[in-house]
């Protein structure tokens, strides 16, 4: 802030600065500190008014110095003709702008809107993407996965535990590695029990990141898994910032653990929701190789490149089978395995980064469109002033002086627009933040910082130069012959420039609108995907009872089925079901399954997803039963060996045959299960995914003796889905007072959440392209209006000679249509290339979807026609007598 103020104070002339500069800065800082305490709105107001005030005062001080050490302008010297300095030019600009408030408002408003948009996007971009991670040498932090082309592991997958040990022992280019994950579990402090987001990480996480605790220490090997470090947020909210909490033990994630340290506020790994970190290390003893799927983080040695690190890690992994053994399938996989290393920041941002850059590009296009509009306005204005400028030139003004005079106007207007833009951005930022998908790191901390203000200033100055430049270059070389002619006439070249600009505008607006159109179609396509279930009127929640009687599969099943009965008796409830992993909220486990026909072996049979279902799960979710039957209560309470499979699981196991009555076996299990029903496939996590091949076990579990279904998800079909939560919570308190209700949503809300990346992209790009469309239409309207005004005489003559109003209208609309058509043609070509980055967001359409391109081009032409029609009507109302008499 003080840097910004010092920069702004430089705007004042030297004498004033020397005398008051320090005082002004300190004064403004005090204002800032006072208003910061009053909240964000007061702070933004203070910032905007201070910046405006300093700019305005500095300008005024330069024009009318108050500081006595500067000689006052000599008497008799009229400032308006003092063209020798920028001061005079600026003063002149202020006056002329004040004289034409309509023009000024249009220019400042247009530029302000566009600069405000890009400033708000920049604020987010700067904070989320450009600010490095809060660790030492963040550029050396990497995320490590692997691929195995040619094996049955598809795409990228997280490494297994033995990789961690191997990398940690053998890595030279990779100094240190850590594995981590997140989960939700209970924290109990006194009477308070809640399910909170937790992290689990190897002890190497902290040295790898370079993070140190604010209080206490980090976990040591001797702690084993009993040590926990907690976040600053948790420390403040649960423990009232009590330092003596270090060393105390609480029930965390199912056992008593000891808080050994409190992390610093900026430590938010892997995200800001994580409230504490338990230790999860990998031990070499008793390790089964091939359990892939860990998140792995590494720190590169100084100067190590990503490809070199990948090569080293790949070589290290090759020696895994000789150290840890494993099945022949595992050995084959390792031969094909290649490590993939990428910057951690890229991994954490993921698709959000792309969305933000696309948005930034779109905002830049809007700014260019706005600049074109404003440049056109200035050019039209310069045209009107040809006579004035010619006179000035004739009485001795140099070309440079005239240039300065015109540039000053654009610059002053742009600076006002910049100030307006800061206000817009301040108002718009909270909207962006609230609409953004969860998981964009550090988005909640976005604010208008000094870098953003500097960006707005630079954007304003560049826009000012760009807008004023064209007109100023033209205007500074006025044709002296104009003086004699009386300053009339329209030259073809001038119109060509203006028409060209409008065509350019149209093209750019079209690119944005096509982008928005593609997202819109994706959204519609995604909305109409049949997920295999119906999210309407369904409420879901979980709770995790901890009771001594709950020891094995049957006891868990009885407990939950009793609770289903209680829920069924709630008023307004149609049906109630239980599932281990509710779609759209949680992923499922997976494992290999074999049929009677297949041999035994670790790599045999298709990989299927696994979940558990009970109660009226299938009817509640409206999942169709295609064949056979679903579970009965008896299936849940003792082991009958029945399972239900989804259609694609049946197809994978018994292609083209009936599945009912056939048997399947999970890898490593002795028990066979018989298929009693086939149900429709469901989309588990994201509507973009293909439906999963799913095996449903009954509640009793695959091995009833050891089985614990500690926290399944309940689904309730009820018209009261939005309001039933308190009733459910009261029921839970009756049966399990120790267990908080959590993960409670309506299925509708989960469905909306699963689409929020796309909704956000659509919403923001939609707004930005609507803005572009609007500005483009205004530009076309302005240029045609001006052309009509210039051609009043010609039109008058035509009408005097018998042209009808309709002919004249057609002529003007045709002129506009020609320009728009050229713009549309260019825009279509540009969009072919420009929509490619959107591909990751699209669903069900290609980036070069012909119907979208055609529809948006038609929309553009229609808007062009409307924008042209208004001036055309005006042209057709020209009174021939009036227009000729004007001469």
């Amino acid at each position: 802030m003080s840097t910004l103020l010092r920069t702004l104070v430089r705007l004042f002339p030297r004498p004033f600065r020397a005398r008051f500069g320090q005082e002004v800065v300190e004064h403004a800082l005090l204002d800032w500190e006072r208003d910061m305490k009053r909240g964000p709105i007061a702070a933004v107001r203070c910032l905007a008014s201070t910046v405006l005030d300093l700019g305005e005062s500095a300008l005024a001080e330069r024009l009318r110095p108050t500081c006595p050490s500067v000689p006052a302008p000599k008497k008799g010297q009229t400032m308006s003709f003092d063209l020798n300095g920028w001061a005079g030019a600026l003063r002149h600009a202020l006056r002329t702008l004040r004289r034409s408030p309509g023009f000024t408002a249009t220019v400042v408003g247009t530029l302000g809107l566009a600069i405000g948009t890009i400033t708000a996007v920049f604020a987010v971009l700067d904070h989320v993407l450009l600010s490095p991670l809060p660790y030492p040498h963040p550029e050396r932090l990497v995320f490590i996965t692997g691929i195995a082309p040619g094996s049955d592991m598809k795409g990228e997958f997280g490494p297994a535990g033995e990789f961690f040990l191997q990398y940690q022992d053998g890595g030279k280019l990779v100094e240190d590695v850590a594995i981590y994950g997140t989960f939700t579990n209970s924290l109990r402090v006194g009477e308070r029990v809640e399910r909170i987001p937790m992290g689990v990480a190897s002890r190497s996480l902290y040295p790898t990141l370079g993070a140190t605790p604010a209080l206490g220490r980090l976990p040591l090997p001797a702690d084993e898994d009993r040590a926990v470090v907690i976040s600053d947020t948790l420390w403040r909210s649960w423990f009232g910032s009590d330092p003596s909490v270090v060393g105390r033990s609480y029930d965390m994630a199912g056992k008593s653990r000891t808080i050994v340290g409190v992390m610093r506020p900026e430590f938010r790994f892997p995200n800001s929701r994580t409230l504490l970190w338990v230790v999860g290390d990998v031990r070499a003893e008793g390790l089964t190789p091939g359990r892939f799927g860990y998140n792995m983080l590494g720190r590169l040695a100084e100067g190590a490149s990503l490809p070199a690190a990948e090569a080293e890690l790949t070589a290290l992994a090759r020696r895994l089978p000789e150290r840890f053994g494993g099945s022949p399938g595992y050995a084959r996989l390792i031969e094909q395995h290649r490590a993939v290393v990428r910057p951690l920041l890229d991994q954490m941002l993921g698709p959000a980064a792309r969305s933000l850059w696309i948005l930034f590009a779109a905002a830049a296009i809007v700014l260019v469109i706005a600049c074109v509009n404003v440049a056109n306005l200035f050019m039209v204005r310069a045209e009107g002033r040809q006579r004035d400028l010619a006179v000035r030139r004739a009485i001795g003004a140099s070309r440079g002086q005239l240039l300065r005079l015109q540039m000053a106007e654009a610059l002053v207007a742009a600076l006002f627009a910049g100030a307006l833009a800061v206000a817009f951005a301040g108002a718009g930022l909270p909207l962006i933040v609230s609409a953004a998908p969860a998981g964009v790191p550090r988005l909640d901390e976005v604010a208008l910082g000094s870098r953003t203000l500097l960006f707005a200033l630079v954007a304003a100055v560049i826009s000012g130069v760009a807008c004023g430049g064209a007109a100023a270059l033209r205007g500074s070389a006025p044709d002296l012959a104009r003086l004699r002619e009386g300053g009339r006439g329209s030259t073809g070249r001038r119109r060509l420039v203006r028409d060209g600009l409008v065509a350019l505008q149209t093209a750019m607006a079209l690119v944005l609108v096509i982008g928005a159109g593609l997202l819109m179609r994706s959204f519609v396509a995604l909305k109409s995907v049949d997920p295999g279930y119906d999210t309407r009127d369904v409420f879901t929640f979980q709770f995790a009872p901890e009771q001594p009687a709950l020891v094995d599969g049957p006891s868990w099943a009885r407990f939950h089925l009793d609770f289903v009965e209680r829920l069924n008796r709630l008023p307004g409830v149609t049906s109630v079901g239980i599932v281990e992993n509710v779609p759209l909220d949680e992923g499922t486990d997976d494992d290999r399954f074999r049929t009677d026909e297949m041999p035994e072996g670790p790599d045999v049979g298709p990989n299927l997803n696994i979940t558990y279902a009970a109660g009226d799960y299938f009817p509640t979710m409206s999942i169709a039963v295609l064949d056979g039957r679903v579970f009965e209560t008896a299936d849940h309470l003792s082991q009958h060996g029945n399972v239900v499979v989804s259609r694609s699981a049946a197809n994978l196991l018994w292609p083209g045959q009936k599945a009912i009555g056939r048997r399947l076996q999970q890898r490593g299990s002795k028990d066979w299960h018989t298929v009693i029903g086939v149900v429709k496939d469901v989309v588990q996590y994201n509507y973009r995914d293909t439906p999963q091949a799913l095996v449903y076990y009954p509640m009793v579990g695959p091995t009833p003796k050891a089985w614990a279904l500690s926290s399944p998800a309940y689904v309730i079909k009820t018209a009261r889905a939005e309001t039933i939560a308190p009733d459910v919570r009261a029921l839970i308190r009756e049966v399990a007072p120790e267990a908080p209700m959590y993960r409670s949503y309506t299925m509708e809300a989960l469905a909306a959440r699963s689409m929020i990346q796309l909704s956000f992209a659509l919403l923001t790009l939609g707004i930005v392209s609507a803005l572009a469309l609007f500005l483009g239409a205004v530009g076309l309207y302005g240029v045609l209006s001006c052309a009509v005004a210039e051609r009043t005489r010609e039109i008058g003559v035509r009408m005097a000679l018998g042209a009808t109003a309709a002919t004249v209208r057609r002529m003007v609309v045709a002129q506009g249509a020609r320009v728009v058509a050229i713009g549309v043609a260019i825009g279509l070509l540009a969009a072919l290339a420009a929509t490619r980055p959107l591909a990751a967001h699209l669903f069900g359409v290609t980036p070069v979807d012909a119907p979208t391109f055609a529809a948006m081009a038609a929309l553009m032409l229609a808007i062009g026609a409307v924008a042209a029609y208004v001036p055309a009507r005006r042209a057709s109302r020209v009174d021939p007598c009036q227009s000729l008499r004007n001469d």
Partner: protein
Amino acid sequence: MSLLEYHLLLALASGPLHGYAIAERVAAESGGALEPRAGSLYRVIARLVGLGFVAESEAEQEVAHPGLARRYYSLTARGRRTLADDTQRLKRTAAVAEKRLGLAARGRS
């Protein structure tokens, strides 16, 4: 004389103040109508100094905001006279205005 200039002189009438205190007092005494930001405030101060209404002075007591440059401003004799003149003028103007708007009559009854 502008309203801000008037209030600034008025703020200084009770004794020397530093810039931030002037701003606070102006805001309070104008009932929040004037909230001069740093740039405008010091320009007005500079002008009043230039006109000889205000002078820099030594502080009488060491108080107020920490860290702020210890530069105090006080009213000159000329400034005090101008403030008095202007106050008289405002009073007369106010009387005329009250009469014309019927405010005074209502006030008496």
